[in-house]
């Protein structure tokens, strides 16, 4: 009996100590909250989002566009690629996007490059929410147009005309874009990029970043 009590107390002390230590000395609570509870992996939901690629100027949570987007918007449309570590949908889209923009980078690192897409400059920004700054992670909710809170997510920020002012316009598409083959996914991305570049070129002249 005494042996059992010793085992029970030891186990409880070890577990409580370990758990307390994790709460005190690691960011595991925040990591679970921000990466699992608040942002879902779409494949966990066994669902895809119906793709609606209409551009809109109001951000998803009414927050202003982040500085890193506005800074890059003066050079061309901004393509934001959000991903996470454990997400089969992200794994499907990762090589497609790399091929689409002809870029090379590691899945678990943040990545930024000015790419040339059909003779236009596009800022490509890759964010893996497991390995990124808070600002980058927070930008996901700004561009979560359909309030899906799911990954992968792709947002394109460009310029558009809104009641007399040229403003940043954006759209977001999700998951594996609603298709089960790479050709259709690439075709949708192509359509999206061409439209955003057209909008950008039409509105660039009247765009004043200080007016935002």
């Amino acid at each position, binding site marked *: 009996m005494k042996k059992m009590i010793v085992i029970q107390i030891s186990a409880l002390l070890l577990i409580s100590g370990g758990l307390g230590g*994790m709460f005190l000395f690691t960011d*595991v609570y925040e990591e*679970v909250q921000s990466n699992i509870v608040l942002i879902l992996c779409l494949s966990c939901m066994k669902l895809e989002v119906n793709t609606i690629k209409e551009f809109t100027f109001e951000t998803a949570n009414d927050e202003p566009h982040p500085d890193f987007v506005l800074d890059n918007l003066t050079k061309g449309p901004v393509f934001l690629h959000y991903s996470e570590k454990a997400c089969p949908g992200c794994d499907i889209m990762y090589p497609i996007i790399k091929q689409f923009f002809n870029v090379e980078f590691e899945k678990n690192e943040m990545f930024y490059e000015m790419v040339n897409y059909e003779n236009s400059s596009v800022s490509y920004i890759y964010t893996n929410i497991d390995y990124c700054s808070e600002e980058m992670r927070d930008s996901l909710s700004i561009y979560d147009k359909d309030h899906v809170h799911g990954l992968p997510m792709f947002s394109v920020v460009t310029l558009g005309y809104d009641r007399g002012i040229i403003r940043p316009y954006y759209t977001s598409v999700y998951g594996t874009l609603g298709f089960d083959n790479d050709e259709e996914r690439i075709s949708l991305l192509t359509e999206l990029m061409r439209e955003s570049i057209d909008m950008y070129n039409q509105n660039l002249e009247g765009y004043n970043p200080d007016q935002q």
Partner: protein
Amino acid sequence: MKFQIKRLLSQILIFFSANLGAFGLKTGFCYPFFYCHSCPASTSACPLKAIENSVYNVKDNGIAWKLLFYPILILGFFGALTGRAICGWACPIGLLQRGTGKIARKLKKYPVIRKLGQHKIEPRLRYIKYFVFIILVVITSALIGFMFTDICPIGFLTGTIPTLILYPGKFMPNPFFWVALVIFILFLVLIFTVERGWCRYFCPIGALLAPFNKISILHISVDTEKCIHCNACSEVCPMSIDVPNMKRDLECILCGKCINVCPKSCITFERK
């Protein structure tokens, strides 16, 4: 208040507390039971998803140790205190099976169903849940990037179905959906035909909690000297345990039904 009513109230209360996300409460805890974080109202994370995230594609990503130990320690904390009482007193899927168990019990009058439950292979089927945990939660996530949560019937029930109902037209099925749907239908058949069938054979969280029954502070004890072997306890046990001969059984969910029916009061909760 009757003991089983208290248990029902505990299950209902914990079900609501697991869904406080509907009021904006989204925490960084892992549930110590089976519930899906993709439920629109979820408060916390599924412990299995945290484990899967920690080992996912281990060759490229390595192991995220803190994410691996975090859910295990949360489950371990409750396990060391109460063993699998979490399954009997807290788990929302346990609550669901409490309802379906009544139908499963009625179906036992059919010889085919009764024979299924008494087949000599039945006790061995209980090891499946350990394989589900080791193979589908850990090994496939680590080596081939396939996660149990992608086809999880509990995720389908608590995450996928409510999402489709709450946001009609916004989502469409992905390739995992159809596999998960088939598994979900099999899950329903199982819980309607075998009382606590999911807990007995497949629940990977039950598999994680079960070993703690061997050392938990709270457990069920049988006074074998007073026992008259009427077997009323085994008859009523939702986990089909041979109660008079059990000693800290891995399958016991501490529901206390055996305590209620024992005519000699020789089964008790013990705290040591």
